[in-house]
């Protein structure tokens, strides 16, 4: 029984760790897509931010500067995306795809040029990373049954970005549904003309959304390389940007459900190695690949309308042009 609790706590603990980049990227995508800009490029931004954060942290020795660099890289990518999709009214999907390749190419190329370690950045340690924070009383409560375990392992002992991610969810919900900015953001994603005729700049509003997107996904990328891991390695985002996008669709572009879906996907990720080779009653052995593919399969099933209907913001993907 004791052991079961420990096992469950451990799985949940790694669920949280694995979900953090998904949550941040999902929220990032939420701002962008709610404003009417489709963001296939989350994957690329995550990767670019991870690289920039690790590189800056390695050079300066400061995780905080690394974080800033990560955000900066994501901002640059968002800027290109904005230029292509807002100013030049290009195809947002194509732009996103291009950014994903750009990140894949640039990170490895620059990494090799700068650090000469086959695309890896140097190992980070100490202040170069965001280290676990022990919440007050975690030590004292350690011996209290159940609560000590849950508080000490599951709630305490994460890095600051993790806590930020969990705060960002209600904050996003509040911004979206309780503020003037949120009202306008939702409006511009549904009917930009309504915003334009109300005398508000569609371009400005969409760029504001892209900036928030960049900050969040930049933090998510930094988490990958300087909080969860101790350095950058090739293609370390490994499809998380796409999973985050899937989670966003699954959550129907709402922050609360996005958190739940990301936790679910994080959980799938956390258990996949534990169940490898294990034989379950009735279903027998579950191949690890099936678990890996599950988020993608679920998303396709959702998109097909077999479980509910995911209706995107109406203006998403359509460049805004004042028509004659």
């Amino acid at each position, binding site marked *: 029984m004791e052991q079961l609790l420990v096992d469950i706590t451990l799985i949940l603990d790694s669920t949280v760790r694995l979900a953090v980049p998904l949550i941040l990227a999902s929220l990032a995508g939420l701002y962008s897509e709610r404003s009417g800009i489709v963001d296939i490029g989350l994957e690329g931004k995550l990767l670019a931010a991870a690289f920039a954060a690790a590189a800056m942290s390695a050079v300066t020795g400061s995780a905080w500067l690394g974080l800033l660099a990560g955000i900066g890289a994501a901002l640059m990518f968002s800027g290109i995306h904005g230029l292509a999709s807002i100013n030049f009214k290009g195809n947002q999907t194509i732009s996103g795809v291009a950014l994903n390749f750009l990140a894949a190419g640039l990170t490895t190329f620059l990494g090799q040029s700068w650090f000469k370690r086959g695309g890896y950045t140097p190992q980070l340690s100490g202040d170069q990373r965001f280290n676990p924070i022990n919440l007050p009383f975690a030590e004292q409560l350690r011996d209290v049954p159940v609560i000590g375990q849950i508080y000490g392992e599951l709630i305490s002992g994460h890095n600051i970005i993790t806590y930020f991610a969990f705060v960002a969810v209600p904050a996003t919900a509040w911004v979206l549904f309780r503020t003037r900015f949120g*009202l306008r953001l*939702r409006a511009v994603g*549904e009917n930009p003309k*309504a915003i334009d*005729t*109300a005398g508000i700049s569609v371009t400005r509003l969409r760029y504001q959304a892209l900036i928030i997107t960049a900050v969040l996904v930049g933090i998510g990328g930094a988490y990958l390389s300087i909080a969860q891991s101790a350095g950058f390695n090739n293609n370390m985002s490994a499809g998380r940007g796409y999973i985050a996008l899937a989670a966003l669709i699954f959550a129907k572009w709402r922050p609360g459900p996005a958190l739940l879906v990301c936790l679910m996907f994080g959980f799938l990720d956390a258990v996949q190695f534990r169940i490898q080779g294990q034989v379950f009653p009735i279903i027998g052995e579950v191949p690890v690949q099936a678990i890996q593919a599950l988020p993608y399969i679920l998303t396709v099933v959702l998109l097909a309308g077999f479980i509910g209907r995911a209706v995107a913001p109406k203006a998403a993907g359509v460049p805004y042009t*004042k028509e004659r």
Partner: protein
Amino acid sequence: MTGLNPANEQRSPGTAASALAIELVGINKHFGPVHANRDIHLAIKRGTVHGIVGENGAGKSTLMSILYGFYTADSGTIMVDGVEHKITDSRHALALGIGMVHQHFMLVDNFTVLENVVLGAEDSALLRPTLNRARDHLKQLARDYGLEIDPDAVVENLSVGQQQRVEILKALYRGAETLILDEPTGVLTPAEADHLFRILGKLRAEGKTIILITHKLREIMAITDEVSVMRQGEMVATLATAQTSPEQLAELMVGRRVLLRVEKGAATPGAVLLEVENLVVTDDFGVPRVKSVNFQVRSGEIVGIAGVAGNGQSELLEAIAGMRDQQSGEVRVKGKALSLEGDDGAARARAAGLAHVPEDRLRMGLVTNFSAWENTILGYQDQYGAGPGLDIAKARASASEYMKKFDVRPANLDLKTSNFSGGNQQKLVLAREMERDPDVLIVGQPTRGVDIGAIEFIHNQIIKMRDAGKAILLVSVELDEIRSLSDRILVIFDGQIVGEADPATADETELGLRMTGSHKDHVVTEPGTLPEHETPIQQTLVQMSPKDNSGRDTN
């Protein structure tokens, strides 16, 4: 015509400058090579309803968009309350008390009425206090102007008329003193239009200024105090409504005497070629738009469907052409029912001998990225070549022949279709559909957005088809067009055929009544007293509406 002068000169000179709510001086606007507004002068008196009429593309909407700050004029000045302003954007216009109700509503469908009203005019960064204040304000506005609407209703659940009220509320909430309405009745049911005019009357009584853009002369005569006429980007006249007539306005709009009658002989109807029986059609959202419609079209006759836009004509046309699923009922061409399996019904309709000139050529009838010859085979592509290959030489040959016959200019087979003028694009479509020698031709809005020269040509072609023994179904929102072309008129209202008329004897008012559903049972259904009518047109409508005209169709 004195109206060519700057409009304010014909007013009494004693009026102070501030008696004008709006004054436009020398406004010019170009869109690329198009000179959309040419040296426009316009003065609008405070507390009046000022109509602006003109054909499609005359520049009315552009002018109002400039006033509303949606576009910036290339030159010219705008005076509001006698003070010159450079209106840079819509926010600026709103601050000056100018509000606009657009033809296509600028509402966020999944927002509540309240959220839509405050959008862009929030008075604090947090939503809740803004919304609470707005709720109170809205209640007051609703009381003052008869604009009752549930502030918490979601806009997509509202009727079109209610949505328009939300737009008006939006403008009033922002403190609009001058309200621009762009073609406000185009999408309204007659009852909703009545309601709108009553609201406008109240607004005028409260001292608001209203600018009404329309191409319906009936509305101009009914509600405006003054009317300005635009033609091809120019302001041709401003007149007091009481001193003008629809005939004079029509002449000013078009620039010459309107040829109301097309030269044509009597029809010689033959066998029934097109039959529509108990047809029910829904729109994209599953709302029934055509409600159990029955009619027949014989060879050698033109049957016109008259109606206010949005009463199911589009859905009816598309359903007959095989483009839209029929809920129930049947469409028969030469006695054979069209099958409706799959999403390629249009191909089977064509195979059965039906040709279709669609209402909206750009959206439906043409692939604008295609060159001219490619568009002349659209829908008939399978007739070119035996196997899987496309017989391009044959297609070009027939394209070249059609373009010559219909005088499409420039006669360039390889020119991208988007580079042709509206009239020439329409000729391409007409040539394609008419030259296949169909038995049945259904035509929607044949002259929409077409220059005047081409209109006569198009009308004559349609008559020629009739004389060649084709069955022709014509749908148009232009009553004049319906009257001058049709041999029989069917009136559609709210998805139902509500009457039939003979164009030779039909009275315009009579038709108008039927089109607007105000005819017999529709008006008098409200028991007891007659509804409150405040505008002159409604009064005349009621007076003229014969209580007993069951014999009308048998005359």
